[in-house]
């Protein structure tokens, strides 16, 4: 540290114009070495950061592929230790709860995003944006406890509904924030054109501005869906899990992440194999969603600048 400061002082002492540059001394050599070492370290950090993704994806693929078959997705689990069976209840449950959670959470999120961007004055917008960000940072397990106290305790039983409520709370900040941003990308001239036709503000938003931003908002919803599809913690004490295919919202329901957790923690090889295969399905779905939506969002972001 002091060395670098010394070099700066040295640079400041360099003679003025007309005098040939000083021959690089010991000082300069040390600065060059420091520069090389630090640049190499930053590069190494980048490599280290990229390695886990490759490793995880590789293992999920290699371990999951052999156990992946149609039976896995269509059959219910068999008693522990027996071969065969599948995770059909988890597949069905994930579809139902993610779908329901999205249905509950998305309208609230989109409307809140509209409020922040189109209606709130400076202070109101800042406050709601702040709250949305804070909500995004709440641990999902705490959101699970919230849904437990809000739905499971009064209903007297674990239920798919409670799981969907927890997932809805998780998706709200994701979609609200993206709605806010995407509405911000719609040019003001579009709103002006509508006002000048004598169209009231709310209709301008619903019929003109929202359709213009809908691509980005849908993308954001898909991103949120990908995120909640992988959530385990908020489902443990809400949906609980179920060995049989269930579509009843008032009863316990299984989910892929829950099933992976149970199987990974168990002692049976057949469970482990199915956990890997189920992970492959989950990772494939989640990554495909995220990949597509991020690419789409990036294009929009690029178009803006």
């Amino acid at each position, binding site marked *: 540290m002091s060395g670098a400061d010394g070099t700066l002082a040295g640079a400041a002492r360099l003679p003025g114009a007309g005098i040939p540059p000083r021959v690089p001394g010991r000082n300069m050599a040390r600065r060059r070495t420091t520069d090389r070492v630090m640049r190499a370290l930053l590069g190494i950090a980048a490599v280290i950061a990229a390695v886990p993704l490759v490793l995880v994806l590789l293992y999920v693929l290699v371990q999951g592929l052999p156990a992946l078959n149609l039976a896995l997705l269509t059959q219910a689990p068999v008693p522990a230790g027996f071969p065969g069976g599948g995770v059909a209840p988890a597949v069905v449950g994930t579809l139902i709860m993610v779908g329901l959670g999205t249905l509950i959470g998305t309208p609230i999120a989109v409307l809140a995003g509209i409020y922040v961007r189109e209606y709130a004055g400076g202070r109101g917008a800042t406050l709601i944006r702040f709250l949305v960000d804070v909500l995004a940072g709440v641990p999902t397990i705490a959101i699970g406890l919230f849904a437990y106290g809000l739905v499971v305790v009064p209903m007297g039983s674990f239920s798919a509904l409670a799981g969907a409520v927890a997932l809805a709370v998780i998706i709200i900040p994701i979609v609200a924030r993206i709605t806010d941003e995407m509405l911000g990308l719609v040019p003001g001239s579009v709103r002006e054109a509508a006002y*000048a036709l004598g*169209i009231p503000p709310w209709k301008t938003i619903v019929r*003109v501005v929202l359709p213009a931003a809908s691509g980005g908002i849908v993308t954001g919803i898909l991103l949120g869906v990908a995120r909640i599809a992988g959530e385990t913690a908020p489902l443990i004490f809400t949906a609980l899990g179920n060995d049989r295919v269930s579509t009843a919202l008032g009863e316990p329901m299984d989910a892929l992440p829950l099933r992976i957790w149970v199987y990974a923690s168990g002692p049976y090889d057949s469970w482990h194999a199915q956990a890997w295969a189920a992970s492959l399905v989950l990772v494939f779905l989640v990554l495909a969603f995220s990949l597509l939506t991020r690419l789409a969002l990036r294009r929009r972001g690029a178009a803006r600048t």
Partner: protein
Amino acid sequence: MPLMTEPTTDARVDPAPSPVPAPAPRTHAVGPVPGARAIEVARRSDEPVQDAGVGVEIEHLDAYYGNRRVLRDITLTVHPNSVTAIIGPSGCGKSTLIRCLNRMHEVTPGARVAGEVRLDGDDIYAPGVDPVVVRQRIGMVFQRPNPFPTMSIYDNVVAGLKLAGIRDRSLLDEVAERSLRRAALWDEVRDKLSAPGGALSGGQQQRLCIARAIAVEPEVVLMDEPASALDPMSTLKIEELIAALRASYTIVIVTHNMQQAARVSDRTAFLTVGDDRSGFLVEEGPTAQIFTNPRRQLTEDYISGRFG
């Protein structure tokens, strides 16, 4: 009937700028409020409405952005079924002035006006007047073409009607064709009415915006430098269009192009910027007189290119 208990969106303030301006969030300013009786009645009358423009009288109009006054004491009469050009150096408040005529000025946060603007004798800033109604009666065409990005050509033209709740298909079809014909665009788009509005060329888009503005049958059409973003050929088309529209509408056009003002307008108003950086009206009169024999030295300096 206006519900008198509802809040009003009277955007006027005392002529003296108050030290603490009431911040007016844009959405408040354009909120839905029952229209003033006079403005409403003109819309609702069952007697056959003539397809003709009406006059606009601007009286002692001041416009502000926050504490800054951008227009000072404008008094100007816009004659029915005529084209009035507003010219002046940049920054003199030309655009602000016409945005005050359909209450678009107040859409900008912190913007407000003082004074009166009378449409066919009724003050559009009177308490209880719904800006939405004002804007249906006074259409506007903007500097850059701004067709609705998600709508087809057809839907763009009838947007003002559809969004106001008119669903009568035959009426919509008729209005679409008539408006597009009047905007001299029909022949170019009649075969692709369902194509997106954004697919047209810049000049066509601007004519689409004109068609959209006249589809709601306004009495006055405001044009804010409508050709400034267009090529010469498109500009010529727009100018021809303005000449043709004069028969049916009162037109106010802002332009930075003096030749254009001379070509298209019947009357010309010249604005300039004062030392206090707010715009004021120097003089107004028949276009020929303003350009050949202005009464004021400022005007003569400007049109002869010595200033501005």
